[in-house]
């Protein structure tokens, strides 16, 4: 089972593939460091440019960007108390007070080492868990795959938190978009309105770029933010190798936060910020001096950064084996796999082991590279990224987005479609409609439909076939659990006696 893992290593170590990971990590750190730009946006913008590349090079860049951006988000969180990514919010609690005490460089070093440890743990778990899980999923028939798709959608809607009503609407919208185009079973074209470009359905990259890359670029031009970066580049850091011994006392926090991060990453819809907050709280609870937390405790930075990087590769466990991404970035990466003709699921492990296992190695190398590239010298350099003017950056990103989408098929129709999705994404974002369910709906909607119809055809039109097998029943029980759990916990919270304030 793990033999393919070793076989994939030489290809990953080739110059081109390794350079792709290095470039990805550097780009990811720079993008993550810019407030308002996320890993999701970065990977969305990158995907169209990878269209003509070797799949492993493209995936290496994505793995690098994902890991780099998760660490990069901590740079403005520590130096300016502006989290570069949502997952870096908890990092600012202790990172910024450290910077105010003149320990900003050390805070970033703790952050980069912790990020690397989280990323390494996550990559190892991906390598260990994904292959056996893929073998299990080979046993799934159409009805089981249908229920897995329903599970993925319900999990992301109900575990994402926030407004469930809006989450459900987002998922319905995503599923509906997945139905546009030629129905592969009946041959009827649905909602193409006579446009031949829509017969193959909506290209996932067009949707991803529109939803995730255009709204932040518009925000860069729309919001007038005057950030004082005058002290951001002066960190007075020592070599990272000299700083590491003083961090070894965080080993328990690293271990605990890595476990939390990996677990949260596997859960569809949870993601980095939830993991970072959980880890921060747990580390604080376990600390001997909880009163120091929030006032510049480096262990707080270690907890949140380990966790938000530990969900990177682990989010790909359900994504690669079942086609259900754990985080928004994993959803975007699924899009990246699809445009290279790689269908996520158990067959991916059988048909393209060199690519899928190579991708896992690339995650591991990207995490290790964080220490080298995000070390003392680099940290000083990357802090300069904060000085990039937002209007110029916004104009650049919009241009990249437009040219990237155009280059996929060489037609303006995709650009118009992307602009439409961009506007929808902008308003959804402002009205707090969650975006991950849309992407998951697009990925899982057609999968669910095809397998539902296939199962019904096999079962001679009997709906009972959907619930006949034990595996289907187990997945249905999991769906009920995911749907009912938030409702039950809400009722329990409401019935819990409130502590007296008098």
């Amino acid at each position: 089972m793990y033999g393919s893992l070793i076989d994939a290593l030489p290809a990953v170590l080739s110059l081109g593939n390794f350079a792709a990971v290095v470039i990805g990590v550097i780009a990811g750190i720079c993008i993550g460091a810019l407030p308002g730009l996320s890993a999701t946006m970065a990977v969305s913008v990158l995907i169209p440019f990878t269209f003509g590349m070797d799949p492993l090079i493209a995936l290496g860049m994505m793995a690098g960007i994902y890991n780099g951006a998760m660490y990069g988000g901590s740079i403005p969180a520590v130096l300016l108390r502006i989290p570069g990514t949502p997952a870096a919010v908890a990092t600012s609690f202790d990172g910024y007070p450290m910077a105010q005490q003149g320990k900003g460089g050390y805070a970033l070093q703790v952050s980069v080492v912790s990020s690397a440890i989280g990323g390494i743990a996550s990559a190892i778990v991906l390598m260990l868990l994904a292959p056996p899980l893929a073998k299990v999923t080979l046993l799934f028939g159409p009805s089981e795959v249908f229920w897995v798709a329903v599970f993925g959608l319900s999990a992301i809607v109900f575990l994402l938190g926030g407004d469930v009503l809006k989450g459900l609407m987002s998922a319905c919208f995503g599923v509906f978009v997945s139905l546009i185009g030629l129905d592969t079973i009946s041959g009827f074209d649905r909602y193409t309105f006579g446009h031949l470009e829509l017969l193959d359905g909506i290209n996932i990259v067009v949707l991803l770029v529109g939803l995730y890359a255009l709204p932040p670029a518009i925000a860069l031009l729309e919001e007038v933010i005057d950030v004082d970066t005058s002290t951001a580049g002066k960190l007075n850091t020592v070599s990272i190798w000299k700083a590491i011994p003083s961090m070894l006392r965080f080993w328990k926090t690293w271990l605990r936060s890595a476990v939390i991060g990996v677990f949260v990453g596997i859960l569809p819809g949870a993601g980095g910020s939830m993991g970072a907050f959980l880890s921060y709280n747990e580390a604080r609870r376990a600390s001997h001096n909880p009163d120091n937390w929030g006032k510049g405790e480096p262990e707080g930075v270690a907890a949140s950064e380990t966790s938000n990087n530990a969900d990177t590769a682990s989010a790909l466990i359900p994504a690669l084996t079942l086609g259900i991404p754990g985080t928004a970035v994993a959803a975007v990466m699924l899009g990246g796999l699809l445009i290279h003709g790689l269908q996520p699921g158990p067959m991916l492990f059988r048909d393209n082991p060199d690519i899928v296992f190579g991708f896992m190695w690339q995650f591991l190398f990207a995490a290790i590279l964080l220490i080298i590239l995000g070390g003392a010298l680099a940290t000083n350099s990357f802090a300069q990224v904060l000085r990039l003017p937002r209007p110029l950056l916004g104009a650049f990103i919009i241009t990249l987005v437009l040219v990237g989408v155009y280059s996929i098929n060489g037609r303006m129709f995709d650009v118009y479609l992307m602009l439409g999705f961009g506007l929808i994404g902008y308003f959804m974002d402002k009205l707090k409609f969650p975006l991950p369910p849309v992407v998951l709906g697009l990925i899982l909607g057609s999968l669910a439909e095809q397998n539902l119809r296939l199962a019904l055809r096999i079962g001679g039109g009997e709906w009972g076939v959907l619930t006949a097998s034990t595996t289907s029943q187990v997945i249905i029980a999991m769906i009920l659990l995911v749907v009912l759990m938030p409702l039950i916990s809400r009722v329990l919270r409401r019935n819990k006696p409130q502590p007296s304030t008098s």
Partner: protein
Amino acid sequence: MKPTASKRAPHPDLIAGIAIMAVSGFLLLRTPDMPTMSSVLPITMLIGLIGLAALLILRVFVAHRSERMKAPRHRIFDSRPRFLGIIASIGLYVGSVSLIGFYTTTAVMVPIVAWCFGYRDIKRLLLADLIFTGGLAVIFVLLMGQDLPTEFFIR
């Protein structure tokens, strides 16, 4: 106390709910032409969207009178004129790319847009523009060999 302008305006969720219901209703009208099995999921999703949009609208009205139910009023635009300016710029850019070519449009539009939206350092702006447009040309012409809308002067 006099209600503020934003409080007097319709709740954004109300507008979103009505828009979703209208679009879903229109799309639902196309399903009778479809074969039965092809129309099952579209009908389910569209009816689901209409039902959920109705709940969204209902929630706005209930939240108006109830303390327990919440329908937060989210701000849509940070600056409406800037947003309209961005949309107009994107429209102009896309239109110009087809008319006068990709590289010419990019070289002209990027500095103009950045300048209009607040970055006024002309020297750095032009240098960044040169590097950016040149970089794109290197990527698309040399590395990817990809044809982009041709420049008007070499057609």
